[in-house]
Structure formats: structure tokens, C-alpha cells
């Protein structure tokens, strides 16, 4: 992949006088034409304390991977290329199957569910299996298969044995194998004793990006077992078959891998908030705050993967990774729709050594509003069930339940609201709040393949802005189908996608205009105050 990137080394002089960093008083939310570039004053910055654990984006996840070089270099450069976009792999479409249920009460499962089953049933010697863009394998140090994204683990035991042999061979030399680059392929290893995680990718992503994804898979496993339990079973028996303890979680992991491909939040280490008028949001937040209970640590209200409200215990911060894991868990099983779910869950970034207990339910049967209440007490179910009821009653009494339901019908906004015709799409992350906003995907990106391709382009920009040794401040990139701009300051990260007719000058002026628009809309697009119980 690296071969088709041609740096023309064009330097980018002060692109626009208006955008030079300005001195801002903390918390000044001025209507100044130069929105704050400093952390804490950017559009969408939270007013008081941060809502999330404060971390740098992906460096945090790869911090324990040995990478040399400093993260602080202030390289500013622009890179332009003319090429046909990133190489897209061959990906079969998902055909929805319409089997006839004889009985009205028989409900057909969603196509995604069927896809997961098909993937697990794949023949590992087939061409389809070989041609997947990204494989993920998890094995034990004894070389026993624990997880494969495609096909069955049993069928891959010798392949995984070879992987472990490779790892051990390099380690015998007091060395660590990080990755192998072959023709069009990358094999990336992540060693997290007692596990070994391996990714085989043809996606053109950098090693760093792939490590980040493997870390997610690792944390996913910890969230089900906790680290001490994982270590204990292998201490007791090196050849333990971990699949016994992970059984039933295949859909959770498959869902996570899917999110890594489609959801910018996992790349940005940020959460998307549901656009909501600020008065409604305030009532929702205060109602959730009031529905507290002694052992509650976090209350999270989600609309799909979008955050509506988050309340936390004083001094406790939820990490993005943990929030993504929680939200993926909730989305992975229909059992939470059946009634109220009650499950142990470890939040590995918060504390990998113990379980919390999560009450997971939808506000109403058919609603998309999912409430997750996280407690320290395993006996807390009925207290939390009561919290949920109090929250719901209050929403209804104060007449915001309806408003909230309506907001769900428009969970996003068209990019045309910004008023820049050439702007097709963008992703804006406010670093201090850890939230991001993004408009709905426009027509050219409606299909799943196109959506994935756009995400790939953003991921590429992201990896350049976060390069471990040579991070860029900004990058401009042209393909045949779109022009892209990525830009990172200490306050925000911004990724823009323009029509191929846009020029660099236009892109630069669009940034100013967009930041102003986000500032104007920040009440609606972001969650500005972070409440505690």
C-alpha cells in the first residue's frame, strides 16, 4: 500500500490568517470569527469537567507497543496525490434471504445475524475465506485456537500453531515480532500474555491502526472475563480451551469488528452524541441524574450507538473504549429487548481486574433508547430497575419523552445545513469533551461498500495525523472521486470530504465556516455539561 503514496512535499504556508491560534480565556464561548483552536475552547468543548477519562486518541491504545520516536514533532506538511483511492478488496454483498415463516408469530432474524453465522460456517480452504480483507485470530500461548473471525476455530488449529511457532521463534532470540509485511498483506501481532492476537490484513491500514483494532478485541475478551480470571485459567492449565468460557460471545466480537470498520468513534476514541435540542437534553440529563442509587457508577442513555446522556459518580470517568464495548454488548443480543438484562461486565480500561454489573434495557419495547446502568453491586438489579422506572416516569411527567422519541427520527442532519455546497461530509471531534459529530452520509456513500471506503479514507488521514514518529498537523489528499482534508489541533480533529471539484483554497475557507457553524450549533450537537450524581 505504501508504494502508491506519492508525497509531492508541497508545504502548506499559513493557510488562512484567520485560523491562527488565538488566546482564549478558558470557557470563553465567544462568537469570535476564529473559533478556539486550544483545547477546552473548541466548539463542543465541555463546560466544566471532562465527561470521559482523558486520553490522547490512539496513542493511548498503542502506548504499550514499542514504537520509537517522539509524538511531539511539529511537522506541518501537505501531501497531494492523484490516484484511484485506496485499493478496495472484493467484498461480497449481503443478500437478504426471505424465507417464509408459516406462522405470523414467527419472526425472521436480521440479515446481519445470518451473516455472522455464515461467516463462522465458512470453509477455511475456500477462496472466499482466503480473499477476506481482514482476518483476526486469537490464540493461547500453547497455540490453541480461541477465536477466528471467519471459519471455525477447529479447522484452523494447525494455522494457529504455526503462528505461535513464529512468535516463539522470535522470542527465543529475546525479540518481539510486531508485524510482517508481504506483498499486499500485513500480518500484525499483539502479545498480551496469556493471549496472542494476530491480524492478517489486505486493507491498506497501517500497523498502528491494526494494533489498535487488536487491542479492542483484547479488551473485548477482558470485558467478558476480567484479566485475573483469564490469567488464572491458563495458570491452572496451559492447554485450557478458552472457547468454553467465551462461547456465546461470537456475535459480540463480530459486532465489534464491524464497528471498527464502520464507526469513526472507535478510530477517534470518541463518542457520537445524538443531536438534541438543549432544553430536552437538559431535562433528560437531570432526570437521569436524579434517578440515582447508592452503588451506581455510570448511567448511560444511548440511541443506537449515539450518546444521549451520561451521568457518572463523582471522580469516576468512563473511558471511550469501555463505552464502545458496553454499547456494542447491548447491541449484540436481542435478549436485552426481551426484558431487562442483568449481566456482569468488566470495563477493562477502568479496571481490568473486576466485574461491574450492568442493567441493560430499552426504555420501551419497540424503542431504540437503550439505558445502561452500571453498578458495583451484583445484588442491585431491583434497585436499578427502580431507577429506570423513576427516570422514565420523570421523562414522561416533564413531557420530554415524546420530544426524545421524535429526535430519534432525525438522529442526524444533512451536511447541506452547513451551507458549503462542495462539502460532502465531515467528522469533527472536540478533544476536550471526547465527543464527535458527523452529518448523515450523502448519496454517493449510501451503500455499505462506499461507506466503508469513506471510512478507509478517513482512517488513512487519521493514521497520518497520528503517525507515531512523523505526525502531520494537516493533510490534503485528492482522489478521483473526492478531495479530503484532515486537520488536527490541540482542541479538535477534523476530517472533511469534498467533491472532487473543490480546491484546496476552498477547503481551507470551508474549515473556518464549518467551525463557526459547529460553534453556533454546539448546544444541539454536543453534550456540554457533564453531570455527576
Amino acid at each position, binding site marked *: 500500500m505504501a508504494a502508491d503514496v506519492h508525497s509531492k512535499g508541497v508545504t502548506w504556508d499559513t493557510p488562512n490568517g484567520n485560523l491562527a491560534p488565538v488566546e482564549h480565556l478558558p470557557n470563553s464561548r465567544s462568537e469570535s470569527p476564529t473559533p478556539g483552536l486550544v483545547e477546552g475552547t473548541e466548539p463542543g468543548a465541555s463546560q466544566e469537567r471532562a465527561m470521559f477519562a482523558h486520553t490522547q486518541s490512539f496513542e493511548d491504545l498503542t502506548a504499550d507497543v514499542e514504537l520509537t520516536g517522539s509524538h511531539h514533532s511539529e511537522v506541518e506538511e501537505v501531501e497531494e496525490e492523484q490516484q484511484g483511492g485506496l485499493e478496495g478488496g472484493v467484498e461480497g454483498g449481503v443478500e437478504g434471504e426471505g*424465507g417464509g415463516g408459516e406462522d405470523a408469530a414467527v419472526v425472521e432474524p436480521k440479515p446481519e445475524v445470518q451473516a455472522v453465522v455464515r461467516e463462522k460456517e465458512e470453509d477455511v480452504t475456500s477462496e472466499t475465506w482466503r480473499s477476506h480483507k481482514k482476518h483476526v485470530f486469537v490464540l493461547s500461548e500453547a497455540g490453541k485456537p480461541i477465536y477466528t473471525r471467519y471459519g471455525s476455530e477447529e479447522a484452523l488449529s494447525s494455522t494457529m500453531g504455526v503462528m505461535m511457532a513464529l512468535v516463539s521463534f522470535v522470542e527465543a532470540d529475546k525479540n518481539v515480532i510486531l508485524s510482517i509485511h508481504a506483498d499486499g498483506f500485513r500480518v500484525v501481532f499483539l502479545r498480551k500474555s496469556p493471549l496472542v492476537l494476530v491480524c492478517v490484513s489486505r486493507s491498506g491500514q497501517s500497523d498502528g491502526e491494526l494494533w489498535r483494532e487488536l487491542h479492542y478485541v483484547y479488551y473485548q475478551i477482558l470485558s467478558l472475563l476480567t484479566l485475573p480470571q483469564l490469567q488464572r485459567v491458563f495458570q491452572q492449565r496451559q492447554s485450557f480451551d478458552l472457547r468454553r468460557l467465551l*462461547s456465546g460471545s461470537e456475535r459480540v466480537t463480530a459486532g465489534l469488528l464491524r464497528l471498527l470498520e464502520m464507526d469513526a468513534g472507535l478510530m477517534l476514541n470518541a463518542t457520537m452524541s445524538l443531536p438534541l435540542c438543549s432544553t430536552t437534553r437538559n431535562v433528560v440529563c437531570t432526570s437521569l441524574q436524579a434517578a440515582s442509587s447508592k452503588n451506581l457508577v455510570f448511567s448511560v442513555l444511548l440511541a443506537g450507538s449515539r450518546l444521549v446522556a451520561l451521568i457518572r459518580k463523582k471522580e469516576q470517568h468512563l473511558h471511550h473504549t469501555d463505552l464502545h464495548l458496553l454499547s456494542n454488548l447491548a447491541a449484540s443480543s436481542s435478549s436485552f429487548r426481551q*426484558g431487562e438484562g*442483568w449481566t456482569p461486565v468488566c470495563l477493562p480500561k477502568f479496571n481490568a481486574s473486576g466485574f461491574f454489573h450492568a442493567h441493560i434495557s430499552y426504555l420501551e419495547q419497540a424503542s431504540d433508547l437503550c439505558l445502561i446502568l452500571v453498578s458495583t453491586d451484583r445484588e442491585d438489579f431491583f434497585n436499578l430497575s427502580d431507577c429506570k*422506572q423513576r427516570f422514565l416516569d420523570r421523562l414522561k411527567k416533564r413531557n420530554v419523552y415524546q420530544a426524545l422519541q421524535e429526535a430519534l427520527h432525525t438522529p442526524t442532519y444533512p451536511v447541506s445545513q452547513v451551507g458549503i455546497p462542495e462539502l460532502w461530509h465531515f467528522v469533527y471531534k472536540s478533544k476536550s469533551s471526547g465527543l464527535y459529530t458527523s452529518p448523515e452520509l450523502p448519496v454517493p456513500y449510501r451503500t455499505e461498500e462506499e461507506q466503508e471506503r469513506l471510512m478507509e479514507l478517513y482512517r488513512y488521514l487519521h493514521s497520518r495525523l497520528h503517525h507515531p514518529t512523523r505526525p502531520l498537523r494537516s493533510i490534503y489528499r485528492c482522489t478521483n472521486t473526492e478531495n479530503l482534508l484532515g486537520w488536527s489541533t490541540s482542541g479538535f480533529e477534523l476530517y472533511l470530504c469534498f467533491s472532487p471539484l473543490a480546491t484546496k483554497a476552498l477547503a481551507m475557507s470551508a474549515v473556518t465556516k464549518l467551525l463557526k457553524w459547529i460553534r453556533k450549533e454546539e448546544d444541539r450537537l454536543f453534550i456540554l455539561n457533564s453531570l455527576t450524581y
Partner: protein
Amino acid sequence: MSAMRIDAKVVMLGKESVGKTSLVERYVHHRFLVGPYQNTIGAAFVAKSISVGDKVITLGIWDTAGSERYEAMSRIYYRGARAAIVCYDLTDNSSFQRARFWVKELQTFEEHCKIYLCGTKNDLVEGDRSARQVDYHDVQDFVEEIGAQHFETSSKTGNNVDALFTKVAEDFSNSAFELLSAEEKGVNLDQKKNSYLYSCCHH
């Protein structure tokens, strides 16, 4: 829904994918989800009211996940349960071995919990006798020995599902009456908070 008082705690136990969730779905929501199954994560709680004679009884049903991962956690789900529906798949002999494990566990830790052994997916063995891996009479002998009840159900067709839960509610209703007169003096205020642990019917 959840604010309603629960009269009897009922717990669903059994190996993964034997059909516990399908049974509860059929009983509570009158539907059946075909195709690849979605494992329960942890447990799901649902309340359902049922009339028995002139009384209305609310069952609090805990549908637990069969995965071994949650085994250490299982006590919190069955503790204080008045009824346990221990499921096994009629087409899978190993699931019956697992059912025996749960019976033993209940006999050791929850002697007041009534046990209902439930063979699931009856529709699969009805069309094709050779699919049956668990013999009706063997289970019947076992059930008599341990003083339990025995049902064979299909969540797909709905066969025997209501009968099972109705029997659970009736047995509870009868026994709650005895229990109430025996324990009337023992009720204290603290119990309210923990009523789900030792759910009893205080009228």
C-alpha cells in the same frame, strides 16, 4: 412494568441453546424467532401476570444464559426462586446431563425451589422420532425420584408452553397459601427491600 410487585421468582436454567429464551418469548410475547440464535448475555428478567382461580399472580422470570462463563454468577439468579424450569433439548443428550447438574445444584442450595424439567423442541422429534436423544420414560423415572414435574414443549408451535407456566403459577399459588399462614409473623420491614431474594407473597 418493572415497578410491579413480583410474587414468585422463577428461574430458567439449562445448557446453552436448549431454548430457554425461546420458551420465555413464546410465553410472554407469543412469538418465536427462527434462524440463528442469539445467546443471552448474563440474564434477562421479565415479569408476567397470570390469573389462577380468582387471584392474579405475577411471575418474575429470570432467563439465564447457558454459557459456562456465567456459572459462577448463577446463584444470584436462582437464589430465593420458588420455581426452576430446568430445560434440556430433546435432540441433545448432553443437554440432559447438564440438566442433572442444575437439579443437583438446586437440591443442594435451594431446597424450597420446585423443579420443572422441561424437554424442549418437541416439534423436532414429533416429525422424526429418530431425532429424539432423550427418552421420555427415563426422564419420567428421574423426575419421580426427585419429586419434580415433567413437561415436553415446543416454543416453535407453542405446544405445552402455557400449560407449563400455568402449572408453575398454580403450584405457587397453592404453596404460597400454606407458606403465608406459616410465616405470617416473620415478615419485617427490611424484607421489603430484599423481597426478591426471598420473594414471598405478602398480601
